[in-house]
């Protein structure tokens, strides 16, 4: 077990930032930690890194007690912080060199690893430039380069793709897979469902500091495979619409988001025509209708009643 967290609780005064979280991450996984803003992802990571004290529970990393083996544990972790953590007054090369040395690399090995990290993140040609000349995506990539040159056993990436172009994002996702193949266990937090779906083998969804679902991608999808999901685009909305649809047999959940209605029914409910009638009966025109396949986005919506990117 690379990470083993048991009944972790972290409070900021009244606020429960982490609420009785237990999870374990096995070697070789890409572990997805999914949750909206303020869910407690960063707080959880900070407790893993020993940067934030927690109130209850226990954390074991590499099956060692953190306090007793702080040095050994930290040496084997690479962290890509959510906020860019690079020196603006050092070049790309110097940035990687700085953190490489911080993790105890020296001499030729250090040089090799710096080149490797720069190649890996596609910054080789810009290594002599200062980050202020970089685009947002390049800075993000440098942020990653600074975390991987010591070949850590565990790489923690806290929303490494925030606010960047699709190309850089693709490159970063590819590199996460590569790093994983090279032997690192990865913790990857995000509020982008597609990302987590694409790269993660195990996914935990948290909200308000609590785990609301966990499992493999397939397991999570199976959770809603028992459901039928229909989205209907409406020309207008009506006051009682949601309540009335909820009264229809077989409807488990009904949500209205702007002009789009999401209706979740138990499998085989066969209530689609009644739903359409209900809408039509209120004088609302149906502009589009879509029967959805299960997605993680959907799981989140079902479990929390909110869209991930709220």
């Amino acid at each position, binding site marked *: 077990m690379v990470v083993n967290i048991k009944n972790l609780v972290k409070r900021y005064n009244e606020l429960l930032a982490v609420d009785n979280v237990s999870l374990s991450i096995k070697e070789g996984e890409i572990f997805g930690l999914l949750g909206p803003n303020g869910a407690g992802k960063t707080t959880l990571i*900070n407790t893993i*890194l020993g*940067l*934030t004290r927690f109130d209850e529970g226990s954390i074991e990393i590499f099956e060692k007690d953190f306090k007793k083996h*702080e*040095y050994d544990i*930290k*040496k084997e*972790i690479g*962290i890509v*912080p959510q*906020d*860019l*953590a*690079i*020196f*603006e*007054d*050092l070049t790309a090369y*110097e940035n990687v060199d*700085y*953190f490489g*040395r*911080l*993790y*105890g690399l020296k001499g030729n090995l250090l040089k090799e690893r710096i080149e490797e990290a720069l190649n890996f993140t596609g910054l080789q040609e810009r290594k002599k430039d200062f980050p202020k000349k970089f685009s947002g995506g390049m800075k993000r990539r440098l942020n990653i380069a*600074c*975390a991987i040159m010591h070949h850590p056993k565990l790489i923690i990436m806290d929303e490494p793709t925030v606010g960047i172009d699709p190309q850089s994002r693709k490159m970063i996702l590819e590199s996460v897979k590569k790093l994983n193949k090279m032997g690192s266990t990865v913790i990857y937090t995000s509020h982008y469902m597609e990302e987590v779906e694409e790269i993660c083998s195990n996914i935990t969804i948290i909200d308000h500091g609590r785990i609301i679902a966990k499992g493999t991608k397939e397991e999570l999808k199976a959770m809603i495979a028992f459901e039928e999901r229909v989205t209907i685009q409406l020309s207008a909305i009506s006051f009682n619409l949601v309540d009335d649809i909820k009264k229809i047999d077989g409807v488990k959940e009904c949500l209205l988001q702007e002009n789009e209605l999401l209706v979740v029914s138990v499998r085989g409910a066969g209530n689609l025509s009644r739903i359409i009638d209900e809408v039509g009966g209120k004088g609302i025109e149906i502009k589009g209708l879509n029967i959805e396949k299960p997605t993680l986005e959907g799981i989140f919506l079902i479990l929390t009643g909110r869209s991930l990117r709220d």
Partner: protein
Amino acid sequence: MMVFIYSIKRILRDKGMLLSMIVLPIAFITLTMIISGDGEYIFNIGVADFDGTSFTEDFIKSLESRGTILRIEDEKEIQRKIIDNSLQLGFVIPQGFTRSIMDNESAAEIKVHRINETDVSVPVGLYIENYLGAAKHIAETVNGNEDDFYRGVEYYRNGLNGIEGLSIDNETGDRIITLNGMGFLVMSMLFFSSSAATLILEDKKNKTFYRVLSSPLKLKSYMLQNLLSFLVVTQLQILAIMLLMSQVFKMNMGPSIINLIILLFAFSLVCISFGNALTSLSKDSRQASVLIPLLVMPMVMLGGCFWPRDIMGATLQRVSNFVPTTWILKGIEKVLHGQPITAITTELIILILFSVVFFLLGTWKKSEVTA
């Protein structure tokens, strides 16, 4: 030691910091040199020699190390030039002066002109008095024998050269300028070290601090390496400014450079721990950059970096005992006056105490790591 090395690199790359470290004191020192240059550094001596013997020639020559000699064979002209300040001192040697000395007559005297007894003209006046007094003694002793008289005077002059620097000469004026320059060095040390300390706040802001904390490096080591780098760069600053003062501006650095350096080193400890206290007590680098001048300027002014503390009222002088700048300048003044290291132990101890107090202030507030 990599944090240390990188920290030095980053300081030397920072234009603002280089400005406060080197350019600021140089600008201030140059400015004072220009302002005070006429009165103190340039010392013009006007001479009208109506006697023209080899005794008077030698005497005038011996004055060359004390100022620029201008031959003006007209007493009125000398007086005029003293009034318009193009001469700081002038004297007239009447005809038959050498003869009258050798004959032990007191009739002929050298007439010395100067506006008033300024700090800088006093030593030259004294020198002239001493020289002539000695010549009279020699004349008395050799009983008017011309050869013996010249030999005696030459002997006296050589002796003077040998002890130059210790004896009364125009050092007083030099000391004022040097002290002034030191005041600016002290000021810029405070400015530099406190702005260097904001590097740590920078790291907190740009989150590299977060990365450092997640690495195996201990927080203590990170802090110490940073402080050490500030200390080392401050020593470079001291060295650069001292070299500049002595080599380019030809300032008189007093009899003991070593003692000066010891004092300045103690003061650099104060500066570093002051910067550390300031940054650990301020929220971010913006707040710190507002606080720096607010705290440094009063210290600099009270401590006498700009003007002698004597001109301040008694209350202010008492208040000034509570700023470290007072003590470094007191110490420097003593050293420039040739006092031994034992005379500045009080100043050294007080400076060390200041750094301890500031250091404790800096470690008092434990900063929240992930804030």
